[in-house]
């Protein structure tokens, strides 16, 4: 890894930058094409096929692995392990949505206009640019578009690449469409659970003494609400979905509660998970005929890089160089898995977006240059080894 000042001393860097900025319209056009291929989590195959074609055009070769990820490799001559650049193939909407993107001179609007097709289009263009204007000091770069990054996907795409990825790559830049200026260096520890409560049911009036599954699930919410510690490190309990009940006059015999526990601190997260299990058991204790099952639907460790880590520090300076005000933060996406496996990873946002995960999701296209500039610069500087190392390699 080199600093942005060192990167800027390479003529290849400026050629690559000029090339990428001149292809802004191509990036937007490709983002629209990708966004219009519906790609809800678990159904990414069509978008993966289209992206494979784009990445093949960019790098000469690309492939789709067993999990459905699209992988492209740009070989380098520099020393050390490879750099990983990732973006997500899936978008945050349900199966059945047929995304249609409206293109106006200043914006793109529609389901998934920004998440995550724009990041994919940027990644493909960066791959193409670096292939054309790369420098001999660059290490290998893997460009990988991953499946299962949203909701129920539980990061299955990136997870499937380990342990191979930790043996191949030492650091990673994860691209996301929304949130220009964000530099996420920490993985929010996340537990996604589904609590199923079963009770005998019955008539609302005649059997009113029996337990009500819906009431028990709500009671569980009330108890869990108080579990996360107040203050820092931050933690939270979020009940996100509750399904129960059939008829006006019947006692619900089944309730399904989906919830998330999040924390910046791994030990706090583990404590909350243990408590969630204990409370599920306590909910039906001494209640004959009642059962409660807690099932894990997703998990991400709370881990990350400290702000003075060279990758964070280097990218922060690069964002500033690109004219972007940086906000250090935390998120739970592909970088979470990389960090857990010891691959230093940060997530950067590429554009300004509103209405995320709605039919009116809108990407502001008036000035995409700073976002493109920072992305290319971050990849360039992190793919280079300092000059003396390269001299050794030669």
């Amino acid at each position: 890894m080199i600093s942005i000042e060192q990167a800027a001393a390479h003529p290849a860097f400026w050629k690559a930058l000029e090339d990428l900025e001149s292809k802004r319209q191509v990036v937007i056009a490709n983002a629209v094409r990708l966004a219009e291929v519906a790609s809800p989590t678990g159904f990414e195959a069509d978008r993966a096929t289209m992206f494979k074609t784009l990445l093949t055009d960019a790098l000469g070769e690309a492939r789709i692995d067993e999990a459905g990820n699209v992988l492209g490799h740009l070989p380098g001559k520099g020393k050390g392990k490879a750099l990983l650049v990732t973006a997500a193939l899936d978008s945050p909407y349900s199966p059945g949505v047929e995304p249609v993107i409206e293109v106006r001179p200043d914006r793109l609007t529609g389901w998934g206009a920004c998440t995550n097709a724009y990041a994919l289009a940027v990644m493909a263009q960066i791959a193409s640019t670096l292939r054309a204007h790369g420098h001999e000091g660059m290490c290998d770069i893997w460009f990988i578009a991953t499946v299962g990054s949203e909701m129920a996907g539980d990061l299955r795409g990136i997870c499937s690449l380990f342990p191979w990825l930790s043996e191949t790559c030492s650091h990673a830049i994860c691209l996301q469409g929304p949130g220009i200026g964000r530099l996420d260096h920490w993985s929010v520890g996340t537990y996604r659970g589904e609590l199923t409560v079963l009770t005998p049911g019955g008539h609302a009036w005649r059997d009113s003494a029996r337990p009500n599954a819906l009431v028990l699930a709500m009671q569980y919410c009330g108890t869990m609400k108080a579990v996360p510690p107040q203050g820092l490190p931050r933690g939270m309990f979020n009940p996100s979905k509750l399904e129960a009940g059939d008829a006006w006059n019947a006692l619900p015999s089944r309730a399904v509660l989906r919830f998330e526990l999040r924390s910046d601190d791994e030990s706090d997260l583990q404590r909350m998970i243990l408590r969630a299990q204990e409370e599920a058991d306590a909910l039906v204790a001494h209640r004959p005929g009642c059962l409660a099952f807690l099932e894990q639907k997703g998990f991400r460790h709370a881990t990350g890089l400290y702000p003075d880590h060279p990758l964070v520090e280097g990218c922060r300076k690069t964002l500033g160089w690109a004219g972007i005000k940086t906000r250090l933060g935390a998120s739970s996406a592909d970088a979470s898995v990389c960090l857990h496996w010891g691959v230093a990873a940060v997530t950067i946002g590429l554009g300004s977006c509103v209405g995320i995960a709605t039919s009116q999701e809108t990407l502001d296209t008036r000035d995409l240059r700073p976002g493109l500039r920072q992305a290319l610069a971050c990849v360039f500087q992190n793919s280079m080894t300092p000059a003396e190392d390269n001299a050794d390699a030669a």
Partner: protein
Amino acid sequence: MQPEEWFEERCWKPIPEQAKALSEIVKERGVRLGVVLPCRDDASTLGKHLLALKHGWPGGSSPWCEISVVDLGSLDSTLEIARSQDARILQGEERIIPGELPLEGIALVRAIEQLGCEIVLVAPAGLRRIDWERFSGLVLSLLEHSQAVVAIGYESEPSNLSSLAIRPLLCALEENLSLVIDPACPALAIRCAGIKQIKLAGTMGYEPALLHEVHQAFGLEGIIQVPIGKLFWSEGERRFQEDVSFRSILALLEAVRGHQAYHTKDEFGHLFPTMKVAADGAISRKSTLQLFPWLGPVEQGSTTARSSRSS
């Protein structure tokens, strides 16, 4: 060419990566291709189509020498979007029927007159999504079959029938054209040199009349049909809109009459009744006979409107 032979040879079988293949053929042969997008209040879709044509062509190299727009009377920001994407806007003075907007047939006439391309693709801007891979087949098929002058798209599989009323009529009037699965399809490509020799109906729903004219001039060899996938319109299927089907049938009947295949002593037209309320509240009715508007042949003459007469 026998009908069976035509169906076997002239139902285009798509090849893999047609859009890329088109770019490569254009590079090799140096053919001049143009695309025209007829639009009316299509601000929500036009930008995307222009972006794809100019910057998002599969493989990166756009095959189009001319990317143009014909405005058919937009009241929204359609033209502003066309200008922002540097599309050429084809303008003309003609109004087919006084007081009415220019109609789809005009777009083709303007493209032939003004673009100077060998082949022109007509892609309606009102489509929510255009599958350029499949649309490329329209142009590729003309490049492949040098005798064909029009490539007409079809949405459904060959085993299905068009849902539009025009097809049975066309079958009755011109038996050979019963082979065309969707004679009213608004997505088509033309070889300009061939089309310049025939008359074009300057109306919406001009497509069946165009096929009839091409068949009269060139026989079945002049036509080819290409699968283009399902068409999704931003505001409903335009061919089902008020008076498109009517005008389409009128255009076809007039084309048939013009070739003396159907005899009537006068041109086709339709009475257009309008109600008027006088100052004293009395209601009167005035009827106008609108005659069918013919344009061209392009090289020979004007594209000005034929007159209407009142009765």
